[in-house]
Structure formats: structure tokens, C-alpha cells
């Protein structure tokens, strides 16, 4: 359930998203999405319209639409809410995306833990087939599209779009080399768009309410509203719809958090803000998040928190590339060294430099973002951490 009053994820007077979309031709759908300035809701924030345009421009008679419902980032559970409450819009978003890029098939890559939603989702699909909103000749537009649900195998990295595609193809979930990008060479070598659940729902809503309406929400570079999952030390955790540009302070007030010391924006791989940064905004231009916000109050040991994050990455690295496979181990060992009071400041600096290398030299987003908590916590809480040992 979305806890506060929703503006975007609100079906009042919404109308028929799919019908509105199908009233346009594919190019105009993409144009509308581009004009809305919608950016991907899965974390990376790539402009959705551009992604669709690239896929539409790729020459191929087979194309695919993939909905990324892997939701593996620790502290994120907003896609689960959307899948439970707006399954119709998730699927409609996929169908219209398929129509826009010229795909015939869609997959939902569903997090294994969400398998309890399968029955409901399949019923929804059936309903759509029966009402001619899926299958052959959808809404009489001569467009065929089917959707298949695939269960994920539980690895965090499988949420990364190219590892997801590998996994869909039945291989070990490992990120691919890019370029070429999935929009060009994706599932089975064919053009494929991978988008987050929330991105598809938002796209569907944009179809009904218009791109212009959407751009009125949010900030200059971050249009629209965003779902966030709030967890940690607060009285009212849960999923909220917030406008981009909301400050951390405003957010803390909304979720009734007291004594907050640190806020982890963007999950384990995100940025850990300290209290004098609480006037910073949640947005693509400042602190961006795929949805996860974790709050820590004064009683928390930051080093311990960091240790948990780093253990997670050591565990979840797919092990393909050197910077991530070994780098995360070195960062974790650094945390252990500090715990034992046996890490010099110069070695810490060395590790932060290593983290920076991991961010630019790793093969995929996992290794490129896993040093974030290390760097931010070690920078923002260095004194606190060292004074305690």
C-alpha cells in the first residue's frame, strides 16, 4: 500500500491508458514519453523515451520488452506494491512499450520471493487476453503481443539488465559487455528494452494524463513523482509517493523519524548522507535512488552498518571481473582492520582510491556502485568511526 496520498499512482479519472496510447502511432508514443522527460525508475535513471527510441530504430523483426521486477536492492519493496495494486498498469505499460518499439513479446522477470504474486498476475494476464488487451490484434489495432512471467533465481546481480537477459536465456547470471547495448543486441541477440516496474506503470499513466501534466511534477531534471521504500529507524516505514526535490529533512518528518544520524539513499549501493546533508534533495541531480531509503538513528554503529553492506557485495558479486570480485573483499577486509584497530589512515585512503577505481573500472553497475557506501560512510563518519576504536 502506498502510505501517503498519491497524485501519480492514482486511478481516479485516469481513463484507459492502453486505449489512449493506441490512439497514437508508435512514434508519437515515444515522442510523448520523451517530452515527459521520464527517467528510468530502476536506479540508473536513463531517459526512457531515448531507450525506446533506440530500440525502435534498431532493425530487426524480433524485439522484446522486459519488465525488471527483480527488486533486489536491499531496502526496496515499492515494485512489490505496484505489482500487487497496479498489475493492470504494469502490463499495459509493457504492451504499449511493445507497440511503440515494435516488439511481439514481453517478459516479466519476477523476483523469486515474489512468487506468491504469480497467481494474481496470471489472472490479470488472462483478464487482459479475454478483454483483447493482450494477445492477437489488440484493441483491433492489428498488433500482437504476449507476456510471459519468469521467476528469478535470487541473485542480486540478475537485476542488472544484461545479467537479467543472460538469466532469461538460461545462462549464469553475469553482466555482458556493453556496447552493444540491449536496445540493439539484447535477448537472443535481438533489440530489447529493460525497464523497471515503476517505469512501465508511470509510462502507462503518462499515456492517459499526458506528458505535459507529468512534467509539472518534480524538479528541473527529475520530472514526476517517485515511489520510495522507507525502512530503518522511523515510526512509519513503508512505501511513499514523493515529488522529486523533496529534502531528506522533509522526508524524515513524513515518516516520523527521530534522532536520525544517517540516511542511506539508494540502498546498499547508494550514498550514506550524514545529518549536515539533510537539506539535500532526492532527485537525479542530487541524491538519486531507485527507491530505497534506509534511516539510521544515533544508536547505530556506522562501521557495523558498513560491514553488512560490504558483506552483501562480497556475497553478491558475480565474480567475473577483477575490480569487483577482489575489490569488495579488500574493502570488507579494510572494515575488519578498522574494527581491530589496525588500519592506518593512509591505508584507508588507499582503499578509498581503490573504491574510486572500482566505480569506473568494474564491468557492471554492481561493482561500479558497491564502493559507494564505503566511500560515503568513511568520508562522512571517519571521525566517529575512528574515535570509537
Amino acid at each position: 500500500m502506498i502510505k501517503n496520498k498519491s497524485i501519480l499512482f492514482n486511478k481516479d479519472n485516469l481513463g484507459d491508458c492502453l486505449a489512449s496510447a493506441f490512439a497514437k502511432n508508435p512514434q508519437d508514443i515515444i515522442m510523448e514519453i520523451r517530452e515527459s522527460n521520464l527517467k528510468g525508475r530502476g536506479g540508473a535513471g536513463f531517459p526512457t523515451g531515448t531507450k525506446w527510441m533506440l530500440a525502435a530504430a534498431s532493425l530487426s523483426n524480433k524485439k522484446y520488452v522486459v519488465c525488471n521486477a527483480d527488486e533486489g536492492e536491499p531496502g526496496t519493496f515499492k515494485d512489490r506494491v505496484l505489482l500487487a495494486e497496479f498489475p493492470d498498469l504494469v502490463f499495459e505499460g509493457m504492451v504499449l512499450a511493445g507497440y511503440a518499439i515494435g516488439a511481439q513479446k514481453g517478459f516479466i522477470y519476477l523476483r523469486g520471493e515474489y512468487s506468491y504474486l504469480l497467481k494474481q498476475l496470471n489472472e490479470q494476464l488472462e483478464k487482459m487476453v479475454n478483454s483483447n488487451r493482450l494477445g492477437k490484434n489488440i484493441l483491433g489495432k492489428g498488433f500482437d503481443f504476449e507476456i510471459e512471467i519468469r521467476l528469478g533465481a535470487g541473485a542480486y546481480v540478475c537485476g542488472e539488465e544484461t545479467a537479467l537477459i543472460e538469466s532469461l536465456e538460461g545462462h549464469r547470471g553475469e553482466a555482458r559487455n556493453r556496447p552493444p547495448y540491449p536496445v540493439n543486441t539484447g535477448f537472443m541477440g535481438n533489440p530489447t528494452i529493460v525497464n523497471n516496474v515503476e517505469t512501465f506503470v508511470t509510462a502507462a499513466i503518462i499515456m492517459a494524463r499526458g506528458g505535459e501534466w507529468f512534467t509539472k511534477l518534480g524538479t528541473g531534471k527529475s520530472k514526476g513523482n517517485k515511489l520510495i521504500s522507507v525502512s530503518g529507524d522511523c515510526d512509519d516505514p513503508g512505501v511513499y509517493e514523493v515529488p522529486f526535490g523533496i529534502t531528506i529533512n522533509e522526508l524524515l518528518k513524513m515518516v516520523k523519524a527521530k534522532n536520525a544520524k544517517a540516511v542511506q539513499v539508494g540502498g546498499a549501493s547508494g550514498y550514506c548522507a550524514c545529518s549536515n546533508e539533510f537539506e539535500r534533495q532526492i532527485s537525479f541531480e542530487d541524491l538519486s535512488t531507485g527507491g530505497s531509503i534506509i534511516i539510521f538513528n544515533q544508536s547505530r554503529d556506522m562501521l557495523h552498518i558498513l560491514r553488512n553492506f560490504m558483506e552483501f557485495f562480497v556475497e553478491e558479486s558475480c565474480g567475473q571481473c577483477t575490480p569487483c570480485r577482489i575489490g569488495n573483499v579488500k574493502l570488507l577486509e579494510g572494515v575488519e582492520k578498522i574494527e581491530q584497530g589496525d588500519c592506518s589512515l593512509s591505508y584507508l585512503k588507499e582503499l578509498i582510491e581503490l573504491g574510486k577505481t572500482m566505480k569506473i573500472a568494474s564491468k557492471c553497475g554492481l561493482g561500479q556502485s558497491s564502493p559507494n557506501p564505503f566511500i560515503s560512510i568513511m568520508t562522512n563518519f571517519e571521525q566517529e568511526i575512528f574515535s570509537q576504536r
Partner: protein
Amino acid sequence: MDKIVKDNRAPVSQKPLVMAKVDKDSIGATVGIEINGNPYKVMLGTTILEACRENNIHVPSLCYHEDLCLAGVCRVCVVEVEGMGTLQAACTFPIINKIKVHTTSEKVRKARRHVLDLMLSEHYGECYSCHRNGNCELQKLAKEYGVDSYRFGHVEKRRYQVDRSSYSVVRDMDKCILCKRCVRTCIDLQEVGVLEAINRGDKTKVTTFMDKPLAEVICINCGQCINRCPTAALKANDPSDEIWNVIDDPSKHVVIQTAPSPRAAIGEEFGLPAGTSMTYQMNTALKMIGFDKVFDTDFTADLTIMEEGTELLMRLKKKLVDGDKNVMLPQLTSCSPGWIKYIEHFYPEYLDYLSTCKSPQQMFGSVIKTFYAQEHEIDPANIVTVAVMPCSAKKFECNRPEMDSSGFKDVDYGLTTRELAQMIREAGLYLPDLPAGNFDDPFGDASGAGLIFGATGGVMEAALRTAYELVTGRTVPFENLDILPCRGFNGVKQASVKLENVKPEWSFLEGVDLNFMIAHGTANAKKVMEALVKGELSNIHFIEVMACPGGCLGGGGQPIPTSPEIRKKRAEAIYQEDAGLPVRKSHENPHIAYIYEKFLKDGPCGHLSHKLLHTHYVKRGKFIG
């Protein structure tokens, strides 16, 4: 069948990168790019690494290998591409627009050094006790980047046990840097697929099915993985200590046979360019090391041609004249022990197609311990036979239990080119400086036909030179005896020779097109076998198969590194030497006539030949251990 020939997988750089379906007309076939501030023109789709190497700009690499598909996992090749937030792996980045690349910026140097530091932190072992010392890509990079300390620590304990179960390949995963070249070699290049990366994160390791010892999985011992491993994680099972022991033992008569390929490559171990032939210097070195006799495996290659050629003609007769349904055609060659193990595992129902001839190495072993022992009145129990081979599978082959037709273990040790080079160094010799020495009698110098066994297509060419002449009484209708359709590195080659005006005893072959195929690398062998299984090869008479890309000259015991270019040079050396030899047909080798006159008196494929020179195979299948 044309399709197999066309689709064949020549082991050159493969690009599974399905290239961006870009509109070539609008951009043009070439792209102008900038590397380190200088302009270059490159073909659309070239990778940054290729572009740099074409233009002599050094970019280090580890997981990249010219023979293999791209991995992009080691990250030492990272470069900066203007406008991109992260560094890019040069080896995998296809150039499709006008990019500006920096190969030595601060970010790049720092990142590469970090990557190296990380690898070294997990790398167990010290270079001075390592057989790749001086020829290790990791060591070389450490030097290049001036590594003078272990910035992120260093492992002090072994994590894995060394797997010495295989006669051919030793695996020491503590030296593995997870570049996965071996995995790609085994699955992509050879299509065997016994190696795979398992687990995740820092527990990732390269291992076999169910983590079994290598001897208990379907490894064909080709050693191609060894040749492409940048470090000492993979090596051949080295018998040189035992060989030194028998050399030093005066009661032992130690003889060595040298295959055609090592001589074309061993110079590389001494810093000579690929393709420098060292045949006669090597003979001298072997004598100086202390081998009692040095024989040329080319002699038994010639013997193989006599036996295998006769076998083929007999099969043709039985099939075409007698209509014998138990005779299988096409006849498949049997001199590559990697190929033998491959077919035993993957096509166990097709072993009857194989020639029953032993490989030249094994033929020689049994001839030495019988004919040679008798002629020289040496007790075969005191003879030790060593074989210098380009091959790691030969080590397994000489240990096959059935290889004892002399009454003893026919070949005691298989020694690779690399291991022999090490022995030569250990003896204090610098090979290129040694004077020429001859092969010893009674086998003496062999024919050029035996020599070209080293290159893919060589067995076929040698067989045709003899068989054609046997049947027609004339030399093969190719200029200078060079049967060019047999040569070159296409994965699968196919050609035919028409038999006309044959001798009366071969009248059933009058007007017959002798159709043959040649495959090298087991990925290509698989293509041929699949066609055979489907019944598409019924008009083919003879197929040569070598397990290794390029044939024996690209064998798993040859000097490291290997590349298409290096293999080409080695082949050139072999063909050049053949062209200059006085005898170039197996049946004209006087020593061959001698052995049939004095010893194998009932002729090729006769009774004694069958006992000593032919063998049988084992239906292994894929599930063993």
C-alpha cells in the same frame, strides 16, 4: 556438406559481438577516431584494442586472446573514452562512431595498477619457483607497472589442492587469475566443455564437472587450455626429472624420437622468431644432453602412411568390390590422441570408422623395443623410449594400458617441446648456437611426407602422395608434389582427386573421385562428425582430423604464446623444409623399404604390423568416473 565447409570455425579471432546494426552507408565503412590526441582511421566495428594494436599503441591485456571470443573480465585493458563516465574495456569496445580514446591517462594508469594489485593480492606463489617464470603475462604486467610491493596484501596459504590426476594437464588453481581463457578454449574453440567457472564473488573458481579430478572427466588432454593460460595455473605433466634420472643411469639405453612440430617451434623458446626451423641443432642438443640415440618420428609417420594408406585401399576394395557391410567409410585418421579421446567420449558408436593405425609416436615405441632392440642386441627391458612431442595428449596416450605390444611399455615418456627446451637450458645449452647433427640409423632421415604431418592437412597430403602413386603408378597431379587444397587453416577443408588410368590390380578404382576432408580443432571435428552421423558423408572416403587448431604445430605442448600468426609461421617452416628434402614420399623412404624387408616381412597391414602397429579403441562415452 558444402555448408560444413563454409560454416567451419577457423580458430581465428571470433567475434560473437553481434555488432550494432548500424547503417554503414551513413557512417561509412571506416571511422575516424582519435587515440591519445592523434587521428586514425579504423574499420567500423574494430575494437579499441585492435585499433590500438594495428597502430602500435600498447594497451595491456590479460583475458583477451586472439583465438577466443571476448570476455572483458580482467579489466587491465581499460581506457578512457571521452564523454563516458566509466572507463571502457578496450578489448570489447566496438568502434562505431568518432570517439576519442586515451590509453595512458592518470585514471587509466591508476585503475590498471589497482587491478593488478588486486590480482596479485590473491595470487599464491613466487615467480622464482614457478615454471612460467620469464614467460608469464601476469609477471610481465607486474614489471610493466612497476609493482614493488603487495599494496593490498598477499595470500600466504594455498586455497586449493593441485590437481595432478591427469597424465597430461596439471591444474594449480592458486595461480589462476580467472581470466577464463581456458574455459573459452575448452568450450568455444574445442567444444569439449570440461571447464567452467562455478560459485560467485570471491569464491569463484574454474573447475570441472562436479569439481572432479581432471582425469575423471571428459577432458581430451589436448592442452589447448594450457597454451592460452596467461599464468602457471595450467601446465603439462612434466616428466623431465624422471628422464634426467634414466639418462644418468648407465644401465639404461635411452632413445628419443622427435616429432615434426617441435623442431619448427622450439626456437621460440630461445627467443627466435616463430617459424625458425631447429631440426638439426636439436639433434645435437639431444646428444649433448645424453640421449643414446636420436630418431625422427617422421620415420613412423612414413610408416603410418604405408599402413594407413594400405588400410584405406583395403577398405575401399572390401566396400566397393566385395560389398562388405562391416567396413566403414570414410576412414578417419587416428594419429592425434586428443582426437581419439574426443571421439571415444563423444561418438563412441563411431569408433569403427577410425583407422586402426597407432599414432607415429606409439608405432615408434613398439618398433624400437622390438626391431631396433633385436638388430642392436639390446635387452628391451633396458631401453627407455622418450618422445618429444608438440602435444600433451601424447602423455596420456603412452600410458594407455593397451600400448604395450612390444611386451613393454612402448613409449615410456612423452615430453613436450616446452619441457625439452627447459632440459636444454638446464644442460647449459643455447640451442641456436649449436652445430647441426643428424638423426641416427637405422631410421635415419625420413621423407618430407612424414614431416608435414605437423600441419593440418599434412597427413592427407602425405597419404595422397603415396596412395595416388600406388594406384596409378604416377605422381600426384600437383606441381612439385604440393597438394595445396590440403594446406591452410580453414577449419574444414574438402577436395578430391580423380583416379584415372589406374594399374590393373586397382581397376575397381578407375574413374573414382577420391574425396577427402580435413578438420582441425575438435570444434571442427564435431561439425564433420555431426554430418557423418546424419549420413551426409557417404561419398567421402578419407578424413583427417587433428584435435588441435592448426594441427600438431599448434599442439598443447608447443611454446607459449600461440596465435594464428605464430601457427602460420610454424606451418611455413614445415612446408619449406619438406620442399627442400631429397625424399618427399613415404614409400620412397629407403628405411621404410628396409623395415618391410627385414622385419615386417608380411608387408603393410600384415600379421606383425597388426600386432605392433595397430590398435583398438575404448567406448568411453560422456559419463565416467
